[in-house]
Protein backbone atom coordinates (compact mmCIF):
# COMPACT_ATOMS: atom_id res chain seq x y z
CA UNK A 1 0.00 0.00 0.00
CA UNK A 2 2.81 2.39 0.96
CA UNK A 3 4.59 1.61 -2.31
CA UNK A 4 1.43 2.45 -4.30
CA UNK A 5 1.07 5.77 -2.51
CA UNK A 6 4.76 6.53 -3.13
CA UNK A 7 4.40 5.71 -6.83
CA UNK A 8 1.31 7.87 -7.10
CA UNK A 9 3.22 10.74 -5.46
CA UNK A 10 6.14 10.35 -7.90
CA UNK A 11 3.74 10.28 -10.87
CA UNK A 12 2.05 13.44 -9.62
CA UNK A 13 5.40 15.19 -9.30
CA UNK A 14 6.36 14.06 -12.78
CA UNK A 15 3.17 15.40 -14.33
CA UNK A 16 3.61 18.78 -12.60
CA UNK A 17 7.21 18.93 -13.77
CA UNK A 18 6.01 19.45 -17.36
CA UNK A 19 6.35 23.22 -17.34
CA UNK A 20 4.28 25.10 -19.87
CA UNK A 21 5.80 27.92 -21.94
CA UNK A 22 5.19 31.47 -20.83
CA UNK A 23 4.64 34.40 -23.12
CA UNK A 24 4.58 38.04 -22.05
CA UNK A 25 2.48 40.67 -23.82
CA UNK A 26 2.97 44.41 -23.40
CA UNK A 27 -0.51 45.94 -23.21
CA UNK A 28 -1.07 49.67 -23.32
CA UNK A 29 -3.71 51.09 -20.97
CA UNK A 30 -3.64 48.12 -18.61
CA UNK A 31 -3.44 50.05 -15.35
CA UNK A 32 -6.28 48.55 -13.28
CA UNK A 33 -6.65 44.87 -12.47
CA UNK A 34 -10.37 45.23 -11.67
CA UNK A 35 -10.85 46.53 -15.21
CA UNK A 36 -8.66 43.81 -16.74
CA UNK A 37 -11.05 40.96 -16.00
CA UNK A 38 -12.17 41.04 -19.62
CA UNK A 39 -8.60 40.29 -20.69
CA UNK A 40 -8.40 37.32 -18.32
CA UNK A 41 -11.85 36.14 -19.40
CA UNK A 42 -11.12 36.34 -23.13
CA UNK A 43 -7.54 35.10 -23.12
CA UNK A 44 -8.23 32.16 -20.80
CA UNK A 45 -10.73 30.80 -23.34
CA UNK A 46 -8.09 30.49 -26.06
CA UNK A 47 -7.41 26.80 -26.81
CA UNK A 48 -3.63 26.96 -26.30
CA UNK A 49 -3.83 28.42 -22.78
CA UNK A 50 -2.79 26.21 -19.86
CA UNK A 51 -5.43 27.19 -17.31
CA UNK A 52 -3.72 25.32 -14.48
CA UNK A 53 -1.33 28.20 -13.83
CA UNK A 54 -1.83 31.83 -12.78
CA UNK A 55 -5.49 32.92 -12.89
CA UNK A 56 -6.90 30.54 -15.51
CA UNK A 57 -3.56 30.68 -17.31
CA UNK A 58 -3.31 34.49 -17.31
CA UNK A 59 -1.40 36.87 -15.03
CA UNK A 60 -1.93 40.63 -15.17
CA UNK A 61 0.75 43.01 -13.84
CA UNK A 62 -0.50 46.57 -13.94
CA UNK A 63 2.73 48.28 -12.85
CA UNK A 64 4.46 47.21 -16.06
CA UNK A 65 1.29 46.79 -18.17
CA UNK A 66 2.18 43.17 -18.81
CA UNK A 67 0.04 40.11 -19.38
CA UNK A 68 1.80 36.79 -18.91
CA UNK A 69 0.13 33.75 -20.41
CA UNK A 70 0.86 30.11 -19.83
CA UNK A 71 0.80 28.06 -23.03
CA UNK A 72 0.22 24.32 -23.06
CA UNK A 73 3.43 22.40 -23.54
CA UNK A 74 4.18 21.69 -27.16
CA UNK A 75 1.61 24.16 -28.50
CA UNK A 76 2.25 27.40 -30.37
CA UNK A 77 0.09 30.36 -29.42
CA UNK A 78 -2.03 32.03 -32.07
CA UNK A 79 -0.68 35.56 -31.64
CA UNK A 80 -3.37 37.17 -33.80
CA UNK A 81 -6.07 35.44 -31.74
CA UNK A 82 -4.30 36.48 -28.55
CA UNK A 83 -4.16 40.12 -29.64
CA UNK A 84 -7.81 40.09 -30.68
CA UNK A 85 -8.80 38.66 -27.28
CA UNK A 86 -6.91 41.47 -25.52
CA UNK A 87 -8.44 44.14 -27.77
CA UNK A 88 -11.89 42.73 -27.12
CA UNK A 89 -11.02 42.99 -23.43
CA UNK A 90 -10.66 46.74 -23.87
CA UNK A 91 -6.91 47.25 -24.26
CA UNK A 92 -4.14 47.60 -26.86
CA UNK A 93 -1.61 44.77 -27.20
CA UNK A 94 1.71 46.04 -28.49
CA UNK A 95 4.38 43.35 -28.50
CA UNK A 96 4.84 39.79 -27.33
CA UNK A 97 7.86 37.90 -26.02
CA UNK A 98 8.46 34.25 -25.23
CA UNK A 99 10.11 33.47 -21.90
CA UNK A 100 13.13 31.24 -22.50
CA UNK A 101 14.14 28.50 -20.05
CA UNK A 102 16.84 30.78 -18.61
CA UNK A 103 14.25 33.49 -18.01
CA UNK A 104 15.40 35.67 -20.90
CA UNK A 105 12.72 37.25 -23.10
CA UNK A 106 12.82 36.83 -26.86
CA UNK A 107 10.60 38.99 -28.99
CA UNK A 108 8.11 37.14 -31.15
CA UNK A 109 7.93 38.59 -34.64
CA UNK A 110 4.44 38.73 -36.08
Amino acid sequence: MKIKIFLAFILTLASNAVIADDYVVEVHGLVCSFCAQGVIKNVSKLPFIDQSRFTKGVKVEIEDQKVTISVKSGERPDIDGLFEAIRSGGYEPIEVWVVQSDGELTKVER
Partner: protein
Amino acid sequence: MRRLLAAALFLCTSSHAHQPVMDMAPRWANGYGIQIRYEWYGSNDLKRGRDDIANLQGLERFVNTTWLEGVYTFDRSVRLTAKIPFVHQRRVVDENGLPVKQSASGLGDIVIGLPLKRYSNRRGMTQNWSFTPSLRVPTGTSSGDFPISDGSWDAGLSLGFSRETPKFYQLYGLYYWKEGSGKRRMQTGDSFGLDVNLGIHPWHSNETNSGIFLMWDLSASHSDAPNQQNLTTAAGADRVYTGPIFVAYRQNLMFRAEFKFLAYERVDNIALSRGNQFSLSVGATF
Protein backbone atom coordinates in the same frame (compact mmCIF):
# COMPACT_ATOMS: atom_id res chain seq x y z
CA MET B 1 -28.00 32.43 -19.55
CA ARG B 2 -25.85 35.42 -20.43
CA ARG B 3 -28.42 36.59 -22.97
CA LEU B 4 -31.17 36.29 -20.39
CA LEU B 5 -29.20 38.39 -17.91
CA ALA B 6 -28.39 40.93 -20.60
CA ALA B 7 -32.06 41.12 -21.55
CA ALA B 8 -32.95 41.63 -17.89
CA LEU B 9 -30.51 44.52 -17.70
CA PHE B 10 -32.01 46.03 -20.84
CA LEU B 11 -35.41 45.97 -19.22
CA CYS B 12 -34.32 47.76 -16.08
CA THR B 13 -32.10 50.76 -16.79
CA SER B 14 -31.32 54.31 -15.69
CA SER B 15 -28.23 56.47 -15.46
CA HIS B 16 -26.67 59.58 -14.02
CA ALA B 17 -23.28 61.17 -14.20
CA HIS B 18 -21.73 58.05 -12.70
CA GLN B 19 -21.68 54.60 -14.24
CA PRO B 20 -23.10 51.62 -12.45
CA VAL B 21 -20.36 49.59 -10.74
CA MET B 22 -17.59 52.03 -11.70
CA ASP B 23 -16.63 54.19 -14.62
CA MET B 24 -13.81 51.73 -15.24
CA ALA B 25 -15.64 48.44 -15.73
CA PRO B 26 -16.87 46.49 -17.51
CA ARG B 27 -14.95 47.78 -20.51
CA TRP B 28 -14.80 44.45 -22.33
CA ALA B 29 -17.10 43.44 -25.17
CA ASN B 30 -20.24 41.61 -23.98
CA GLY B 31 -19.40 42.42 -20.38
CA TYR B 32 -22.09 43.20 -17.89
CA GLY B 33 -22.38 44.29 -14.30
CA ILE B 34 -24.92 44.65 -11.55
CA GLN B 35 -24.83 46.75 -8.43
CA ILE B 36 -27.03 47.35 -5.41
CA ARG B 37 -26.57 50.80 -3.92
CA TYR B 38 -28.16 52.15 -0.77
CA GLU B 39 -28.36 55.95 -0.57
CA TRP B 40 -29.48 58.08 2.32
CA TYR B 41 -29.97 61.82 2.66
CA GLY B 42 -32.12 64.22 4.59
CA SER B 43 -32.21 66.81 7.32
CA ASN B 44 -34.35 68.90 9.61
CA ASP B 45 -32.41 72.09 8.91
CA LEU B 46 -34.64 74.83 7.59
CA LYS B 47 -33.05 77.45 5.36
CA ARG B 48 -33.91 80.78 3.83
CA GLY B 49 -31.48 81.32 1.01
CA ARG B 50 -28.09 80.47 2.52
CA ASP B 51 -29.12 81.09 6.12
CA ASP B 52 -30.32 78.58 8.69
CA ILE B 53 -33.55 79.70 10.31
CA ALA B 54 -35.52 78.46 13.29
CA ASN B 55 -37.48 75.28 12.63
CA LEU B 56 -40.15 75.72 15.26
CA GLN B 57 -42.53 73.15 13.80
CA GLY B 58 -39.94 70.40 13.51
CA LEU B 59 -40.12 70.16 9.73
CA GLU B 60 -37.93 67.44 8.26
CA ARG B 61 -37.37 65.25 5.23
CA PHE B 62 -35.43 61.98 4.96
CA VAL B 63 -35.11 59.83 1.85
CA ASN B 64 -33.70 56.29 1.63
CA THR B 65 -33.23 54.83 -1.81
CA THR B 66 -32.05 51.38 -2.77
CA TRP B 67 -30.86 51.36 -6.37
CA LEU B 68 -30.65 48.24 -8.47
CA GLU B 69 -28.24 49.14 -11.24
CA GLY B 70 -27.09 47.30 -14.32
CA VAL B 71 -24.72 47.88 -17.21
CA TYR B 72 -24.12 46.00 -20.44
CA THR B 73 -21.07 46.71 -22.59
CA PHE B 74 -21.48 46.00 -26.30
CA ASP B 75 -17.87 46.92 -26.82
CA ARG B 76 -15.74 49.39 -24.91
CA SER B 77 -17.22 52.34 -26.78
CA VAL B 78 -20.91 51.58 -26.31
CA ARG B 79 -22.68 50.66 -23.07
CA LEU B 80 -26.26 50.53 -21.88
CA THR B 81 -27.06 51.31 -18.26
CA ALA B 82 -30.16 51.08 -16.11
CA LYS B 83 -30.94 52.21 -12.58
CA ILE B 84 -34.09 51.16 -10.75
CA PRO B 85 -34.78 52.97 -7.47
CA PHE B 86 -36.87 51.68 -4.59
CA VAL B 87 -37.67 54.70 -2.45
CA HIS B 88 -38.75 55.11 1.15
CA GLN B 89 -39.28 58.73 2.12
CA ARG B 90 -40.82 60.58 5.02
CA ARG B 91 -41.26 64.20 5.89
CA VAL B 92 -42.99 66.64 8.19
CA VAL B 93 -44.57 69.56 6.35
CA ASP B 94 -46.37 72.68 7.36
CA GLU B 95 -50.06 72.53 6.47
CA ASN B 96 -52.07 75.52 7.58
CA GLY B 97 -49.60 76.20 10.36
CA LEU B 98 -49.58 72.65 11.67
CA PRO B 99 -46.83 70.04 11.25
CA VAL B 100 -48.10 67.03 9.30
CA LYS B 101 -46.26 63.74 8.85
CA GLN B 102 -46.23 62.21 5.37
CA SER B 103 -44.47 59.19 3.95
CA ALA B 104 -44.32 57.08 0.81
CA SER B 105 -42.58 53.95 -0.37
CA GLY B 106 -42.27 52.24 -3.72
CA LEU B 107 -40.65 52.07 -7.10
CA GLY B 108 -39.16 55.35 -8.29
CA ASP B 109 -38.35 56.60 -11.78
CA ILE B 110 -36.15 54.26 -13.81
CA VAL B 111 -33.19 55.89 -15.55
CA ILE B 112 -31.77 54.50 -18.79
CA GLY B 113 -28.44 55.67 -20.19
CA LEU B 114 -26.37 55.04 -23.28
CA PRO B 115 -22.74 55.90 -22.46
CA LEU B 116 -20.68 56.36 -25.62
CA LYS B 117 -16.98 56.32 -24.93
CA ARG B 118 -13.83 57.05 -26.85
CA TYR B 119 -10.84 55.36 -25.27
CA SER B 120 -7.17 56.11 -25.60
CA ASN B 121 -4.77 53.47 -24.28
CA ARG B 122 -1.14 54.42 -23.93
CA ARG B 123 1.91 53.21 -22.06
CA GLY B 124 1.16 53.58 -18.35
CA MET B 125 -2.30 55.13 -18.67
CA THR B 126 -5.79 54.86 -20.09
CA GLN B 127 -8.26 57.66 -20.62
CA ASN B 128 -11.68 58.11 -22.13
CA TRP B 129 -14.16 60.76 -23.11
CA SER B 130 -17.79 59.84 -22.61
CA PHE B 131 -21.04 61.26 -23.88
CA THR B 132 -24.16 59.87 -22.25
CA PRO B 133 -27.74 60.58 -23.30
CA SER B 134 -30.18 59.46 -20.61
CA LEU B 135 -33.90 59.07 -20.18
CA ARG B 136 -35.81 59.10 -16.91
CA VAL B 137 -38.99 57.06 -17.21
CA PRO B 138 -41.92 57.99 -14.94
CA THR B 139 -42.36 54.58 -13.31
CA GLY B 140 -42.72 56.00 -9.81
CA THR B 141 -46.09 56.85 -8.36
CA SER B 142 -47.20 60.45 -8.58
CA SER B 143 -50.23 59.98 -6.37
CA GLY B 144 -50.65 60.69 -2.67
CA ASP B 145 -49.65 63.65 -0.54
CA PHE B 146 -45.92 62.91 -0.87
CA PRO B 147 -45.47 61.47 -4.37
CA ILE B 148 -42.25 59.70 -5.26
CA SER B 149 -42.29 60.99 -8.84
CA ASP B 150 -43.64 64.05 -10.59
CA GLY B 151 -44.71 61.69 -13.36
CA SER B 152 -42.69 63.28 -16.14
CA TRP B 153 -40.39 61.91 -18.84
CA ASP B 154 -37.03 63.63 -18.41
CA ALA B 155 -34.00 63.79 -20.69
CA GLY B 156 -30.40 63.99 -19.54
CA LEU B 157 -27.03 64.54 -21.14
CA SER B 158 -23.62 64.15 -19.59
CA LEU B 159 -20.09 64.69 -20.80
CA GLY B 160 -17.24 63.06 -18.95
CA PHE B 161 -13.52 62.54 -19.03
CA SER B 162 -11.54 60.09 -16.95
CA ARG B 163 -7.87 59.24 -16.85
CA GLU B 164 -6.17 56.50 -14.92
CA THR B 165 -2.63 55.33 -14.23
CA PRO B 166 -1.58 52.44 -11.97
CA LYS B 167 -1.52 54.88 -9.04
CA PHE B 168 -3.92 57.74 -9.83
CA TYR B 169 -7.51 58.12 -10.99
CA GLN B 170 -9.39 61.25 -12.06
CA LEU B 171 -12.88 61.79 -13.42
CA TYR B 172 -14.63 64.97 -14.51
CA GLY B 173 -18.28 65.03 -15.47
CA LEU B 174 -20.84 67.62 -16.52
CA TYR B 175 -24.53 66.79 -16.71
CA TYR B 176 -27.84 68.44 -17.54
CA TRP B 177 -31.38 67.20 -16.94
CA LYS B 178 -34.30 68.70 -18.84
CA GLU B 179 -37.48 68.02 -16.90
CA GLY B 180 -40.73 67.31 -18.66
CA SER B 181 -44.21 68.28 -17.53
CA GLY B 182 -45.51 65.80 -15.03
CA LYS B 183 -48.83 64.62 -13.75
CA ARG B 184 -51.15 66.65 -11.51
CA ARG B 185 -49.57 69.72 -13.19
CA MET B 186 -46.30 69.09 -11.32
CA GLN B 187 -43.15 70.44 -12.98
CA THR B 188 -39.73 69.85 -11.44
CA GLY B 189 -36.99 72.34 -12.34
CA ASP B 190 -34.15 71.56 -14.74
CA SER B 191 -30.77 70.86 -13.20
CA PHE B 192 -27.13 70.81 -14.17
CA GLY B 193 -23.93 70.05 -12.35
CA LEU B 194 -20.31 69.08 -12.19
CA ASP B 195 -18.70 66.00 -10.63
CA VAL B 196 -15.00 65.62 -9.95
CA ASN B 197 -13.39 62.48 -8.51
CA LEU B 198 -9.68 62.47 -7.75
CA GLY B 199 -8.10 59.42 -6.21
CA ILE B 200 -5.24 57.11 -5.64
CA HIS B 201 -4.85 53.37 -6.04
CA PRO B 202 -2.63 52.81 -3.01
CA TRP B 203 -2.64 49.01 -2.92
CA HIS B 204 -3.38 46.10 -5.15
CA SER B 205 -2.28 42.51 -5.57
CA ASN B 206 -1.61 41.04 -9.00
CA GLU B 207 -1.81 37.55 -7.54
CA THR B 208 -5.31 37.84 -6.08
CA ASN B 209 -6.62 40.63 -8.35
CA SER B 210 -7.64 42.69 -5.36
CA GLY B 211 -7.02 46.22 -4.21
CA ILE B 212 -8.45 49.50 -3.00
CA PHE B 213 -9.06 52.99 -4.33
CA LEU B 214 -9.24 56.08 -2.12
CA MET B 215 -10.90 59.05 -3.79
CA TRP B 216 -12.25 62.48 -3.04
CA ASP B 217 -15.46 63.70 -4.62
CA LEU B 218 -16.53 67.26 -5.37
CA SER B 219 -20.04 67.78 -6.75
CA ALA B 220 -21.65 71.11 -7.56
CA SER B 221 -25.18 71.42 -8.84
CA HIS B 222 -27.92 73.89 -9.64
CA SER B 223 -31.61 73.03 -9.72
CA ASP B 224 -34.24 75.41 -11.02
CA ALA B 225 -37.21 75.94 -8.77
CA PRO B 226 -40.15 73.58 -9.31
CA ASN B 227 -43.56 75.04 -10.00
CA GLN B 228 -46.18 75.69 -7.34
CA GLN B 229 -47.89 72.36 -7.89
CA ASN B 230 -44.78 70.34 -7.13
CA LEU B 231 -45.32 67.90 -4.29
CA THR B 232 -42.10 65.86 -4.48
CA THR B 233 -38.78 66.36 -2.70
CA ALA B 234 -37.50 68.65 -5.47
CA ALA B 235 -36.48 72.19 -4.53
CA GLY B 236 -34.68 74.95 -6.36
CA ALA B 237 -31.15 75.25 -4.98
CA ASP B 238 -27.41 75.53 -5.54
CA ARG B 239 -25.37 72.93 -3.70
CA VAL B 240 -21.78 71.83 -3.32
CA TYR B 241 -21.01 68.44 -1.84
CA THR B 242 -17.60 67.05 -1.05
CA GLY B 243 -16.32 63.96 0.68
CA PRO B 244 -14.34 60.73 0.59
CA ILE B 245 -14.96 57.60 -1.43
CA PHE B 246 -13.59 54.20 -0.49
CA VAL B 247 -13.55 51.38 -3.02
CA ALA B 248 -12.34 47.82 -2.46
CA TYR B 249 -12.35 45.09 -5.07
CA ARG B 250 -11.46 41.44 -5.33
CA GLN B 251 -11.72 39.55 -8.60
CA ASN B 252 -15.04 40.67 -10.09
CA LEU B 253 -16.58 42.00 -6.85
CA MET B 254 -16.55 45.63 -5.77
CA PHE B 255 -17.58 47.46 -2.61
CA ARG B 256 -17.96 51.24 -2.50
CA ALA B 257 -18.70 53.61 0.39
CA GLU B 258 -19.22 57.32 -0.14
CA PHE B 259 -19.94 60.17 2.24
CA LYS B 260 -20.89 63.54 0.82
CA PHE B 261 -20.72 66.46 3.17
CA LEU B 262 -22.95 69.39 2.22
CA ALA B 263 -20.37 72.17 2.01
CA TYR B 264 -22.57 74.86 0.50
CA GLU B 265 -26.30 75.26 -0.04
CA ARG B 266 -28.55 78.08 -1.16
CA VAL B 267 -32.22 77.33 -1.49
CA ASP B 268 -34.95 79.30 -3.20
CA ASN B 269 -37.16 81.07 -0.65
CA ILE B 270 -37.61 78.88 2.45
CA ALA B 271 -36.90 75.17 2.16
CA LEU B 272 -35.46 72.23 4.04
CA SER B 273 -31.80 71.57 3.49
CA ARG B 274 -31.05 68.40 1.55
CA GLY B 275 -28.48 67.50 4.20
CA ASN B 276 -25.49 65.23 4.03
CA GLN B 277 -25.55 62.17 1.82
CA PHE B 278 -24.23 58.67 2.39
CA SER B 279 -24.16 55.67 0.12
CA LEU B 280 -22.98 52.06 0.21
CA SER B 281 -22.84 49.77 -2.78
CA VAL B 282 -21.86 46.26 -3.72
CA GLY B 283 -21.35 45.31 -7.35
CA ALA B 284 -20.14 42.55 -9.58
CA THR B 285 -18.97 42.45 -13.19
CA PHE B 286 -19.01 39.47 -15.53
